[in-house]
């Protein structure tokens, strides 16, 4: 199983993906408070801390661009951004948003006691899974304000 997982993270893919690795795993853990969803997400890194940091980035990326289609009920199955090509079209904005220490950190927080699932893959890489709360309602408002998605009923 691990060999499959490692082969899925080739060096070429990492280069292509930009600020996140496109093939991260994510699953729904349930509904949080109003406008929040709980997600278990995995990240990769040379150290567990780096992988956990990447996982938070992946969580926000999943809510914005992928939707959460696996796991328990209660998460948004549709992504916030549904327009094809929007990630490329607004690449300047998203490169800044998802930069290390970027604005995306305002919308994600680790839940529980901070424990993480840690798997060593290959000789120098860790795969770390954490449960995070993503404030998707605030995230939607942020993207509306940035003009990336439309406010519900905009134009009427």
């Amino acid at each position, binding site marked *: 199983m691990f060999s499959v997982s490692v082969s899925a993270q080739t060096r070429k893919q990492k280069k292509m993906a930009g600020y996140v690795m496109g093939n991260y795993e994510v699953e729904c853990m*349930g*509904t949080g408070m*109003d*406008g929040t969803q709980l997600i278990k997400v995995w990240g990769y890194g040379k150290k567990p801390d780096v992988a956990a940091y990447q996982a938070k980035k992946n969580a926000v990326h999943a809510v914005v661009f992928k939707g959460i289609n696996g796991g328990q*009920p209660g998460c948004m199955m*549709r992504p916030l951004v549904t327009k094809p090509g929007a990630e490329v079209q607004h690449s300047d904005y998203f490169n800044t948003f998802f930069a290390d220490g970027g604005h995306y950190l305002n919308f994600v927080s680790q839940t529980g006691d901070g424990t993480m699932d840690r798997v060593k893959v290959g000789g120098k890489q860790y795969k770390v899974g954490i449960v995070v709360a993503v404030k998707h*309602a605030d995230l939607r408002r942020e993207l509306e304000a940035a003009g990336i998605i439309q406010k519900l009923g905009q134009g*009427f």
Partner: protein
Amino acid sequence: MRNLLLLVTFILFSFSAFSQAKKPTIMVVPSDNWCIKNGYTQMYDEMGTMKTLPDYKMALQNETDLLMTISKINTMMADRGFPLVNLETALKNIEQEGAEIAMLGSKSGGSITESPIDVLQRTANADIIMQLTYVVNQNGPQRSVTFMLQGLDAYTGKQIAGAQGTGNPSFATETPVLLEEAVLAHIDDFNSRLQDHFNDLFENGREIAFQTRIFDTSMVDFEEEFDYNGEDLELGEIIEDWVFDNTVQGRFSTSTYTENVIRFDQVRIPLYDERGRANDTRRWIRDLRSMLGKPPFSQECKIYTRGLGEVWLIVGEK
């Protein structure tokens, strides 16, 4: 100078007012399925056939869970910038309006005129109905909620948005909490689909239904031929051509064509008229009425609208 400033302000204001398309109204109602399963129905005798209708008033007065769920959806939609029409308030308004119409009189003793059609149209209505269904499932000591929200276009009858699912089973959680969780879990997916519908509307025009009919006092029917723009065409064909010319990319379909009635479905009308004003069905059809009022047709026509989404043009008289 002051007058000039006022004029500029007025023009800017007018432009911004006209640049807004007409906003559809949305209302959450319990589905017929929910009302019948929970016993909130009333029987209605329609010419000898007994019909079962949902009794929304009774349901709202007795089911706190329903009221809470509707209230939660209304609140969340308002938070997202799209306040809804509240069903309970709409029902109360209709009752109040009926009482006021019956009581109100002029100084000389005149009362307010209301035709049977006016009475019929005095119902709780919205352009988009959010139809709500939920079932509390019991599996031994565990309970879960199956939740379904359907966004229905009231005039085309199409489902334009939806979200449904069953929540996690729980031993201890109370029904209102399970329902609240269900609303939280589904409302944003629903809204995302609703936004897709609005985007389609802005791109391809508002979808309406249009019928044209004939009063039995009329001297013509839709098979009457006229010489119009150098062609001999039936009145119905001339109307069909007008619809083609006045829809977004000529989009419509003719579902019925007889000498007495022509039904057009999936008619896509532009959101704005040629002067940039927000369009609606009445405004859209006015030009056709004017055209038919002039030679060679010289026909009086009555326009009858059903909310934002359906319009009838009845040829023969007003």
